[in-house]
């Protein structure tokens, strides 16, 4: 295995990305003997692993979400602490994606590879900000890797929501948001904007909110939306999983105004298809500018793209004189799409 030939020691098998000299997979599908998990989303933290290494937050999230499928032998590793595994040294660094999300730095005979999982560079009060880790090989996502995706200011998007509540005080504002990360970020942004009324949440979002609170992320007063009086929900902000916003569940609310917080809301047709009246472009993934700038800043001479719109990103990578490679890892996309 030549360290400078990355394919020799970082391979792709049926379970996903595998580090041979370390003997572990990263975010594997199906049960793996040894896994490193970048973050708690269901397309990365899958059930059935034997040993799993992750940040304490990610392990807590996996425990809460996977039940019996949680790793049998969890091992917590804090950010920035190097750990020898086989012939490699592994260090986790914040990825800024959701609570506990990590990039995995693997050092093998002086060569540095970073598997970044999902990441973003923009500010998020609910998780540790992205740390730039210089490396020779950078493995990146490409969820929003088209120049059209420019996420803009999340606080301004939440400002639109608050303004709409003022304009339509008799309508319940139902905001679709992924349960892990987006929900808590939207609530934290509401609080940062001075919104102090209770935020109502769908039952499916409760566990993750409790978990964030237990790690010290303050979310203010949350109330269950189910069972709340109809009058109480007039002019209220109600968060629900994306699958529930166009569902019978939402129709019980007083004259619901449908909103959706997602990077996909940049695409007008996508908002319209889902009957969204108030699209909020808020993403926990890097947009085109963040992806391309991050790749340049890492100094990597080679870049592998795991999943998403890789064609455009690979083209860009090659125009900057780097070697690019599509891994086309299957089964990776935002959960709950």
């Amino acid at each position: 295995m030549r360290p400078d030939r990355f394919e020799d020691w970082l391979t792709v098998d049926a379970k996903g990305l595998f580090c041979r000299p370390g003997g572990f997979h990263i975010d594997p599908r199906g049960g793996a003997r040894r896994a490193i998990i970048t973050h708690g989303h269901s397309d990365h933290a899958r059930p059935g692993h034997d040993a799993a290494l992750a940040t304490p937050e990610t392990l807590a999230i996996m425990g809460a979400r996977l039940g019996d499928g949680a790793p049998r032998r969890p091992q917590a590793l804090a950010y920035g602490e190097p750990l020898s595994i086989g012939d490699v040294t592994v260090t986790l660094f914040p990825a800024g994606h959701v609570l506990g999300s990590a990039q995995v730095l693997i050092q093998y005979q002086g060569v540095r590879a970073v598997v970044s999982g999902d990441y973003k560079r923009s500010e998020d009060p609910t998780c540790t900000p992205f740390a730039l880790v210089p490396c020779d090989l950078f493995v990146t996502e490409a969820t929003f890797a088209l120049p059209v995706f420019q996420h803009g200011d999340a606080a301004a998007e939440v400002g639109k929501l608050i303004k709409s509540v003022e304009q339509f005080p008799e309508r319940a504002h139902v905001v679709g948001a992924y349960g892990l990360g987006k929900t808590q970020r939207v609530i934290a942004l509401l609080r940062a904007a001075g919104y102090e009324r209770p935020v109502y949440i769908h039952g499916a979002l409760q566990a993750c909110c409790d978990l964030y609170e237990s790690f010290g992320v303050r979310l203010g007063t949350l109330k269950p939306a189910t069972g709340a009086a109809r009058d109480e929900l007039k002019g209220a902000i109600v968060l629900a999983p994306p699958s529930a916003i166009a569902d019978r569940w939402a129709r019980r609310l007083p004259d619901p105004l449908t909103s959706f917080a997602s990077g996909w809301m940049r695409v007008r047709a996508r908002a319209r298809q889902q009957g969204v009246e108030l699209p909020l472009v808020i993403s926990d993934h890097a947009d085109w500018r963040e992806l391309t700038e991050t790749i340049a800043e890492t100094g990597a001479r080679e870049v592998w793209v795991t999943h998403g719109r890789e064609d455009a990103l690979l083209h860009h990578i090659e125009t900057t004189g780097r070697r690019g490679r599509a891994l086309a890892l299957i089964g990776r996309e935002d959960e709950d799409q």
Partner: protein
Amino acid sequence: MKAFSALLDRLVYTPSRNDKLRLMADYFASVPDPDRGYALAALTDGLFFRVPFRRIFAEMLGRPRRSRAVQALARLCG
């Protein structure tokens, strides 16, 4: 200008006529002149530009001024 673009964004996604009216009423009550004057003109087909649209589109598209595509785009811009 930003307030007007925000208004247009809301109008595009809002299906209810009454809600559209409320959004416009709020806009005109809160945005100062001359912006809201321009907005009123834009919304009521009263905004005219002294700009040679036909020539600009013909150059952009690389088509003759009398071509159907150029004519259609120019009509859109008044």
